[in-house]
């Protein structure tokens, strides 16, 4: 239960990151989700990514909407402020928070109901605006908390646990994110942490809207034969275009790659994305190509995963608004209030 704190017992030799934090310092309350839920694997991946990146937990703000996925921010980064907002409206609240303090790291956690149905408008506009954030959708194709209704990402023809077939066209949030201007777009699978953790790291260190669609099977309502979001189906149809190794500037690069096998992308903060190609024709800097590839493979029933698009020179919302470097929530009275002299001059102009 979430109100039970995790035991503080810790092995003396638990590994520490360069800040001296252990993994436990990045964990949160005990999850109340179903045993085997893909979402818990994503929470674990977030914990690992933040630990590896030496992010101070309290410098992260985690925001979510409503639903099973949106409950998860309580289950990681317990030393961070979190905000469980209203259904489908996390993007706007996150946008406001990001405007108030540009120095924190913003993580938006949402689900397919929260982002593709009720919140599709806010999802779209947050991407358009270039909000500097890591936006993760934990995508299982169903409404879990209300017990198994189809969501808007459910594939046409997929079958619910009760045997109902979905006739509606699915929304592909990755395709939308690409079209709408997200500058880091990835898809992954909650059952593949080797793929997921580096993708989250890259997103956290990306400047601009980073979107990761994580297929995360619902063990209770959408893990049966006939579902296209079950563990088995996703494993069989996972079509990864690349594997990402995330490398901090301080890290030594030991791995060696065959010529033409690797693509190296340097992000604005100096972090390096090493992309090992799995599909030789796939170019993650080609936005239109990415959209085409996605559609072609989707038509074949394949789920394209990996780092699908990245623009490491993208600008974010603060740049567009030309806001001062100092966070707005830290500007003192003297920086904000023009004072009585300015008012006297203004009064004179109003006569």
């Amino acid at each position, binding site marked *: 239960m979430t109100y039970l704190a995790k035991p503080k017992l810790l092995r003396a030799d638990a590994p520490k990151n360069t800040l001296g934090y252990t993994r436990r310092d990045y964990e949160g309350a005990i999850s109340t989700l179903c045993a085997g839920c893909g979402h818990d694997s994503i929470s674990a991946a977030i914990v690992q990514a933040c630990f590896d990146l030496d992010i101070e937990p*309290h410098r992260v703000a985690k925001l979510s909407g409503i639903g099973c996925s949106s409950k998860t921010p309580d289950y990681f980064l317990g030393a961070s402020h979190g905000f469980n907002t209203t259904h489908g409206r996390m993007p*706007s*609240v996150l946008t*406001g928070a990001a405007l*108030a303090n540009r120095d924190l790291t913003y993580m938006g956690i949402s689900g397919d109901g929260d982002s593709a149905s009720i919140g599709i408008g806010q999802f779209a506009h947050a991407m358009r605006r270039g909000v500097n954030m890591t936006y993760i959708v934990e995508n299982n194709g169903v409404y879990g908390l209300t017990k198994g209704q189809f969501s808007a990402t459910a594939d046409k023809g997929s079958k619910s646990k009760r045997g109902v077939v979905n006739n509606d066209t699915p929304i592909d949030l990755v395709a939308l994110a690409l079209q709408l201007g997200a500058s880091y777009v990835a898809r992954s699978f909650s059952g593949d942490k080797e793929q997921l953790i580096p993708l989250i790291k890259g997103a956290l260190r990306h400047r601009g809207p980073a979107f990761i669609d994580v297929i995360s099977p619902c063990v209770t309502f959408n893990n049966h034969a006939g579902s296209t979001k079950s563990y088995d189906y996703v494993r069989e149809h996972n079509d990864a275009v690349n594997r990402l190794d995330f490398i901090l500037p301080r890290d030594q690069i030991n791995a060696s790659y065959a010529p033409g096998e690797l693509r190296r992308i340097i992000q604005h903060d100096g972090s390096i994305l090493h992309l090992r190609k799995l599909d030789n024709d796939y170019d993650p800097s080609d936005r239109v190509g990415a959209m085409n590839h996605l559609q072609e493979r989707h038509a074949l029933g394949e789920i394209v995963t990996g780092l699908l698009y990245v623009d490491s020179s993208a600008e974010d919302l603060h740049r567009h608004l030309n806001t001062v470097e100092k966070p707005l929530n830290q*500007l003192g009275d003297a920086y904000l209030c023009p004072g*009585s002299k300015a008012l006297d001059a203004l009064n004179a102009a109003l006569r």
Partner: protein
Amino acid sequence: MKPIQSSNDFVIKFANVNGSGSASANEMFARAIMRMGVPVAPRNIFPSNIQGMPTWYEMRVSAAGWLGRRGGCDLMVAMNPQTWDRDIAEIEPGGYLFYDSTKAQPRSRFRDDITVLGIPLTEICNREYTDARQRQLFKNIMYVGALTALLGMEFGVVEKLIADQYRGKDKLIDANVNALKLGYDHAKAELSCPIGLRIERADGVGKQIFINGNNACGLGAVYGGATVAGWYPITPSTSVIEAFGSYCRKYRTDPDNGMARYAIVQAEDELASIGMVIGAAWNGARAFTATSGPGISLMQEFFGLAYFAEVPVVVFNVQRGGPSTGMPTRTQQSDLIACAYASHGDTKHVLLFPEDPYECFTLGAQAFDLADRLQTPVFVLLDLDIGMNDRLCQPFDWDDSRRYDRGKVMTAEMLDAGKNFGRYLDVDGDGIPWRTIPGAHPTKGAFFSRGTTRNAYAKYSEAGTDYVYNMERLRHKFETAKKMIPAPVLKPASQATRFGAIYYGSTSPAMAEASALLEAQGVHVDTLRVRGFPFADEVIDFINDHDFVFVVEQNESGQLRMLLMNEGEVDPKRLIRVLHYDGTPITARFISGRIADALSKHKVTPIRKQVAS
């Protein structure tokens, strides 16, 4: 019928076609009267349209300084053939009609009891100008020139206004002054100037400034320390944000690097705008939005979240009429209930009611202190009448020793000193908890914000006892708020009376004049202007001190009256409705007429019985 004779006290109404450039000419004329030291209250009555529909500009000229609508019209400047008949009908007996006499009109289209003043404006324009747009724009300036002569005003004053307005664009100055002179000279030559209505130099304006409430709200938000605004365009509130933006560019641009000490985001809808405001305020920035009725409806769920998560947000609501296409360019005070109890699940909000641009500025700035101190949404409820019309008001002032009250923010130092932090814990006995700002401390003070399923330490809880604790604390917080809300303003009648009147917001100037009209008739009514909600004890005391209290409002359902009944547990029979809700601003004649009627009936039958029947 003897023509009306009046110096510095009359009503001029301009009937125009919208999109013809008339509003700026009319406003210039109003300013010219003010520069002669005579108070004027102009009101733009405009359609929800860009070009071609009827629009009126009503100017109350009042040496006594009455800034409300009086009612009636002494001089009609009829420039719109579409509305001719109703415009002619509106003129007071003995009044004046000014019109474009280019096209001859049959006698039947005029009235015998008014003075008709015709100038062939179109003909003169067609003769003087070749460009179609110039013909239109200069026609406006030309009638300003003619009126200058007809009202016996100083030509030099208007000429100087034009020079001030187009400073640096000499060509425009010359062209406009030329048009002004054409109108002036023609009136002087062909009509008998001045008419019975005259503007005479006076000293009634003094230090007052002339500005609209929306601009004053935008300025108030700058002075109040707002740094984040999320918004969505909607009439009549749009210009609050536009003003905030332009004042920010002027006062909040970093002189060293030209960067912005503010962020304004035009959202995709009102849900997103209030969402951004809540996010920014949760994260420690002062944030606000401006909207109108439909936006208030859309924001309801978020208001509840802000109320229960206790996020200090400020909302300027410039009130108008109903949903969809409903009267967006007309004024009303019809969102009180929608704001006072906005959202689901037992909520109650702080409201402020500015009476004019001066209070839009002061209460607008104060709203941010109140929101931070109380950690709750604060609504500044103005309306189109104050928001979009330039109004004379006292000059803005600011005490430089004043510091923003950021409320109970627990800092890293306080956490390190071992202060007990429970996000929703009442430690001070005033119902207001402490909060921390995200990122403040590495190990202490973090919390997870939610709606209501949590205990006093912000831990997840569905326990009934935790819920009840929270609701009782919020109720207590609302009691605390009572003492912080701006006090009501009492104006006693010249002699003791059993009757009172309560009013608020834009009704203020009309109510003041109505009181004077009633006093002149020997009718005495004490008045109380309510400036906010929750009601201070003085408001309920005022009702208890009178047998009957008129509640004067600009809505159909008597919304302030409902709040008074509900919150003050007042006997409804003692609160008499005086309601004006046709979308135009309430007038002094309407208020005094209704009150006088009610009281004269009262002399025959006791009101207690009459109301009961």
